[in-house]
């Protein structure tokens, strides 16, 4: 297996030196993977359905049980998984580049703590009424994530002219600690039902009941990804250090700000959609870099695609592992986290 990875890596890095060919080949491979997973995933589940039956146009929709299961029960979940997985993986890549640390995750800078607190407050203080037609929990969690991001940014800029990555990291850790404490406290105040709901939300779950939450998350994610598209070259240069990057023409402060806010936006939207699903944002960037090298222009799109495929696949496992019970996908990703870090440990010299 390692030899396969090694030979893929050699082929993509050295022999096909032309960037456009490498880019096209890699994105095509990951794209086909993601597409296949997303098409096969809704077909898997406790009730077997077949592809032909789903797309049998001779049957009207209201009579086609297979199609109903596919489009109403399963496809939203798969789409949510693809969006959340892609967003978290991409945010992971960007934040690791920003903090110049391959161990950074989308949750390092406090976004998920803010989102969790927002969701907790709604679940436990009991305001599950829809606000302007959107369910309260996702809205509150997104607002919470915005709050956290603003606080972290303010803290990081408090004493320094630029955006020092060390200060940013410390501010994120500070926020995570403070918000975790508040979350603990709020959970203590809850009764059994609320507590149950809260804990379940914190596990990270893709059980979206309709396309609505997806449609609301989509514009946010689109904005984040448009920002992501402009970053890769600057992120490459930023790896050399802020001085070296500036000497090569990068507007370091602007790049850092754009990276910070777009990654936080993507993470906030992803967490409000699926809860704080962990480890995608650190496993996928690592694996992609191992396969295709460190050039962010290739890594960023590839990680997005692989993240989407990976999370949807994990969700399939979550749904079928203890069928007919549907486990929260966060449990599956968490179970993969430990072995991943162990493997990383064994690789480090």
């Amino acid at each position, binding site marked *: 297996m390692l030899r396969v990875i090694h030979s893929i890596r050699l082929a993509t890095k050295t022999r096909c030196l032309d*960037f456009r060919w490498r880019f096209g080949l890699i994105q095509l491979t990951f794209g086909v993977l993601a597409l296949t997973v997303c098409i096969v995933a809704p077909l898997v589940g406790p009730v077997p359905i077949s592809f032909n039956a789903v797309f049998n146009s001779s049957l009207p929709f209201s009579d086609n049980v297979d199609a109903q299961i596919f489009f109403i029960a399963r496809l939203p979940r798969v789409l949510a998984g693809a969006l959340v997985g892609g967003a978290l993986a991409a945010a992971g890549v960007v934040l690791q580049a920003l903090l110049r640390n391959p161990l950074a995750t989308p949750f390092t800078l406090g976004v998920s703590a803010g989102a969790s607190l927002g969701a907790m407050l709604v679940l436990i203080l009991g305001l599950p009424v829809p606000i302007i037609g959107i369910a309260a929990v996702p809205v509150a969690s997104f607002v919470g994530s915005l709050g956290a991001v603003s606080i972290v940014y303010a803290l990081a800029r408090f004493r320094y002219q630029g955006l020092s990555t060390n200060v940013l990291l410390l501010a994120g850790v500070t926020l995570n600690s403070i918000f975790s404490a508040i979350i603990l406290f709020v959970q203590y105040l809850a009764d059994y039902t609320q507590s149950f709901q809260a804990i379940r939300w914190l596990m990270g779950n893709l059980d979206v009941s309709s396309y609505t939450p997806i449609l609301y998350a989509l514009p946010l994610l689109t904005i984040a990804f448009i920002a992501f598209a402009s970053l890769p070259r600057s992120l490459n240069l930023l*790896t050399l250090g802020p001085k070296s990057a500036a000497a090569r023409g990068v507007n370091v402060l602007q790049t850092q700000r754009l990276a910070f806010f777009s990654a936080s936006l993507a993470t906030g939207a992803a967490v409000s959609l699926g809860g704080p699903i962990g480890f995608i944002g650190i496993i996928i960037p690592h694996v992609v870099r191992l396969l295709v090298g460190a050039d962010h222009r290739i890594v960023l799109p590839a990680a997005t695609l692989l993240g989407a495929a990976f999370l949807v696949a994990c969700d399939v496992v979550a749904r079928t592992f203890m069928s007919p019970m549907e486990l929260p996908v966060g449990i599956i990703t968490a179970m993969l986290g430990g072995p991943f870090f162990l493997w990383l440990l064994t690789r480090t010299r």
Partner: protein
Amino acid sequence: MNVSFSYNTTQVLNNISIAVPHGGITGVLGPNGSGKTTLLNLLGGLLKPTAGYVRLDKKDLSTFSRSVLAKKMAFVTQETHLAFDYSVLEIALMGRYPHLGPFQIEGPTDIKIAREALKITGTRDLENRPFASLSGGEKQRVIIASALAQLLQTSTKYEFGITEGLLLLDEPTAALDLRYQLEIAATLRSLNKNQNTTIVVATHDLNLAASLCDQLILLRSGHVLKEGPTLKVLSAETVRTLYNVEADVRFDENSGYLNITPISKSPNA
């Protein structure tokens, strides 16, 4: 091409006025904390002076856009720690980014130039090696190659040459052993001679400065102590004033450069 500046960054540098001659190797010498790095950063446009100006080609640095400046000047930091695993060629190619449009990819010319830069610094055969696996001297030479790639332009169809380029190096040999110090010095000398690169080196290594630079700027606590040709500026008195050290400064016929041998601390330090 001429760089001149006069500025007043009150905390570190005080109202310095110097000129860097075109086509030469200038050394910025001084003890730790004298402001060498600040001076270099100001020269490279990485810092803005709190008062005064920094001019390149008689135009203030702030009038140049970032990418234009990056094509005229390249900066080599003392050490480079990479968070991710890039190959040597990728790092050399990063020097070409200022030459690319917003979403443009490096073309065959850029790859040729990057390879040429690697060849000039003697690192061409390390092309596909991951940067982290290189020795200290190799790493520094690759970084110099990357800086060089910023400056190289096609002058004729088959040859690459710098028509005007300024290379700034901040203590390039501080973390390197003797052999690599010699390698880097030789690389810089050949760059200056063959590619007509103007070089400014900040260093506290007196012998390196003596062997490499033809002009020196001596800094002490944010002021210019002396400025001028190496043979005139570097003497036992200036070493004493700068470092509070008694030293023997003499011309060595073997190497053809000044040799500075520290003897003892100055009595009234």
